[in-house]
């Protein structure tokens, strides 16, 4: 069991918060929220934004009758307005043991990204939920709304421990059962799933979420500094692998990694899932301010 290093306590700095203050999360889909928020909904509601007219039928609220039109046409028309609702933003952060790896570590990187996305959501009155998963959903901080919840969220992210093996399928299944509401779902992790990532993502696809998969790997995973005859031990399940690291083996490893990541990307693209790949040596500010903006997650 390991914890987040103390030097990573400041997941968001004031300067960075100032930079993301004006951003908002963008969903390619318009979802029905539970509470009125700042987003237009498909529902006709009571916002100030005019949507359409329709004929009056018995039972309609007379407050919505456009009397000016009645005066001109002597017919009753109801004035319809767009409903503004809140947005469900769910962030699933991989907190398996393999995430506590690399410099900077993948889990710190994932927490910072999660904190940034969460802040943007909170600032726009979106309903933000953060889940930590490894072998299923382990911890959650659900239903946060407004900036007031930020300290609470940051404390959750900072104190969540990395432990256990990763089981994305189980975590996704649990999440999908517990959260039938549509919304944005962001998966943060390395997606090194010995059981495969396909089943888990299919659980989420069934709920018609606006899905984002953000895969992050440390430089040590992208270009391992290994040499010689080694016995590799899996940090999650203690699995052992005898390898003699040669140039040919490393080349093959890199090719395999590239193929694995390419397979994940293709899987996501085919199913309308946004896929982002980043190394933890890329500053996470750059990811949020530039990369996410280019990929349309924030605007």
């Amino acid at each position: 069991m390991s914890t987040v290093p103390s030097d990573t306590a400041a997941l968001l700095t004031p300067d960075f918060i100032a930079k993301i203050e004006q951003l908002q999360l963008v969903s390619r889909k318009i979802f029905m929220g539970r509470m009125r928020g700042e987003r237009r909904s498909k529902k006709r509601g009571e916002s100030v934004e005019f949507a359409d007219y329709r004929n009056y039928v018995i039972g309609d609220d007379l407050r919505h009758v456009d009397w000016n039109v009645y005066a001109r046409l002597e017919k009753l028309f109801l004035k319809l307005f767009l409903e503004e609702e809140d947005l469900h933003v769910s962030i699933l952060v991989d907190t398996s043991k393999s995430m506590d790896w690399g410099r900077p570590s993948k889990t710190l990187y994932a927490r910072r990204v999660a904190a940034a996305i969460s802040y943007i959501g909170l600032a726009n009155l979106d309903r933000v939920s953060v889940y930590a998963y490894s072998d299923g959903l382990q911890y959650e901080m659900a239903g946060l709304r407004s900036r007031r919840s930020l300290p609470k969220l940051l404390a959750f992210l900072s104190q969540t421990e990395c432990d256990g093996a990763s089981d994305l399928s189980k975590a996704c299944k649990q999440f999908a059962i517990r959260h039938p509401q549509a919304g944005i779902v962001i998966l943060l992790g390395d997606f090194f799933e010995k059981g495969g990532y396909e089943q888990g993502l299919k659980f989420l696809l069934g709920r018609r979420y606006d899905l984002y998969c953000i895969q992050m790997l440390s430089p040590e995973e992208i270009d391992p500094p290994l040499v010689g005859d080694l016995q590799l031990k899996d940090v999650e399940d203690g699995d052992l692998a005898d390898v003699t690291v040669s140039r040919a083996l490393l080349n093959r490893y890199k090719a395999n990694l590239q193929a694995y990541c390419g397979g994940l990307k293709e899987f996501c693209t085919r199913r309308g899932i946004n896929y982002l790949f980043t190394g933890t040596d890329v500053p996470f500010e750059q990811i949020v301010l530039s990369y996410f903006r280019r990929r349309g997650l924030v605007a």
Partner: protein
Amino acid sequence: MPDFLNPAAIGIAAAATIPPLVALYFLKLKRRVHVVPSTFLWKRTVEDLQVNSPFQRLRKSLLLLLQLLVLTAGALALGVPMCEQVEQREQTLILLVDQSASMNVIEEGNKTRLDLAKARAKQAVADMPAGSRAMVIAFCDRAAVAASFDTDKRALSSRIDAIEATQSTTSLGEALSLAEAYSQNVIIGGTEEGKDVAPTSAAPDATVLLYTDGRITDGDRLAVERLKVEAMEVVAVGARADNVGILSMDTKRHYERPDVLQVFASLRNFGPEPVRLDASLYINDAFVDNQVVELEGFVLPEGAPDAVLTPPTPGSAKSIAFDEVNFNTAGVVEIRLRVDDALTADNRAWCVVEPPRNVRVLLVTPGNFLLEEALGCLPVQLEVMRPSAFEAAVDAGDAKVMDGERCRYDVVVMDAFSTAKLPQGNYFFWGGAPKIDGVTTGAPIRDQRFFDWDDTHPVLRHVPVAAVDAFEWLDLKVPVDATPLIKGQSSPVLAHLTRGASQYLICAFSLIVQDDAGNPMLNTFWVTKPHFIVFLQNAVQFLSSSLMSKGVLGAPPGQPVTIPVPPKAAEVAISRPDGQTDRVPSAGFNTVHYARTRATGLYRVDPALPGHEHFAVNLFDPVESHVAPRTKIAIGAETVQATTTEQPTNRPAWPYVLLAMLLVLSLEWVVYNRRVFV
């Protein structure tokens, strides 16, 4: 497939190194544990490599394989492998190396035949199995032991290297005699009866290796007794055949104008291609004249035994003559051929000429005015002496007649006088004969006619012998080597005989005989004919000219030369053509004998008697000049087929094995580093 001189070492080395190496590989490798986020991709990668590699089993143990190769190569090298191993020779070798003039031919690679022969001989020495011994004999016209039996290969090689080229002729007989002498198993007495001891030099089973170009003159005249000719191996070296040589050279002063010199030389082209060359005449190293000579190529007729024994192809041999060379002093005449051919030793020839002088003729007669008058007609310096006075002068060594051991006169005419007191000289006997072995005179023969004569001989040139008759002549008996010029019905009438440095022209009849009453009478009317004077002139010119051509000192290469020295000289310095000088003590004698004449050229003598300041050594040997190597060499009745191609030899292969070991080791290093370092 190489053989190994020390095969046991291979097994020992392999047993000592290979099992431990394999055992090391059987030990489980202790791997360093390294924690990674996931072994998921690593396992897949290892599986991929194993699946994708067609030689994955080999790859797994490639280092082991390479290291096994290294050890195997090292073990093989310890076995001292030899490639192209031939049947091992006998334990004792006798190497005969030809160092004659024809071995100076420069072959391909700018190496002389002698260099090639020495290289082959050294290779044979190097290939000897351990414990073998060899001796080296170098031969040309003589043979010398270059190295006696020795097992030290390095010493033998250095002695072979020390063999120098000569410009001598080739005589195999002495070399074979030496080889036989060393190979015979002579039993010498031991300390106890019945326990004889063979000398260590005895080698009855020795193998004789002959390195030559096959230009051997005396091969078929040899009788090899103890050596097995069929076991003799002849290694022929060389390939070139293009050569033009001077086979003879002569100088002659004009009979009537002694200050005019005539130089003759005979040239022959032994090569197959026609040659056009310059033949230049030099006198005392100064250019005098040049002639362009064109010689046709010489083609050995099919089935002909040898070029030397075969008449030259028409046009391939020519004589050249430089007439009308005004030269009235003593000097050295040289002919140089400007031609690029195989052998240079026969492209120059020298001849030492004496200053012109009148022929001195001594008439020894009891009184013969006819002969005296006839000789007086000739352009000679004539003196007359009684027989008794001549014999007395010879007995006394009178300087009037004698010059050392030789007669001072160029020609001595003996009239009706036979004597044994004949110093070296040229004698013309009338009605008498020299009292030397094989020459006798019997009772007079009468009433016979001249039966046959050789009118091509210089003595009878322009002489109509058919018109000559004689009343009687002596029954002359001459040795078989004498040349009868005129034959009677039962005995020769006129004969020419050469003995040592003397020559005799013997006419069996006298000009004047006594009749039955004891009165002198004319034996022949020849004296009344003009052609009698012609005959006398021919005879004197023939005898004296041969003196002039042979009187100069000269010798073929390698032959000793007898040089007269001034009476009080304790030693003479003889400068060789190569510039080196030998000092030869006279030891009180009037002559010295000098034998270091293996190089052709002009030798200078100091101090020297007038006319003996130089002597020339010329090759003049068609056997040596015909440089085309022979592959069939007759030795006695046997004919040995020479090997001309490079013989398979024992060459040490261990350096190549070590090189292979080094290469494999380097490859192993590369493989290891590719595996370990990234």
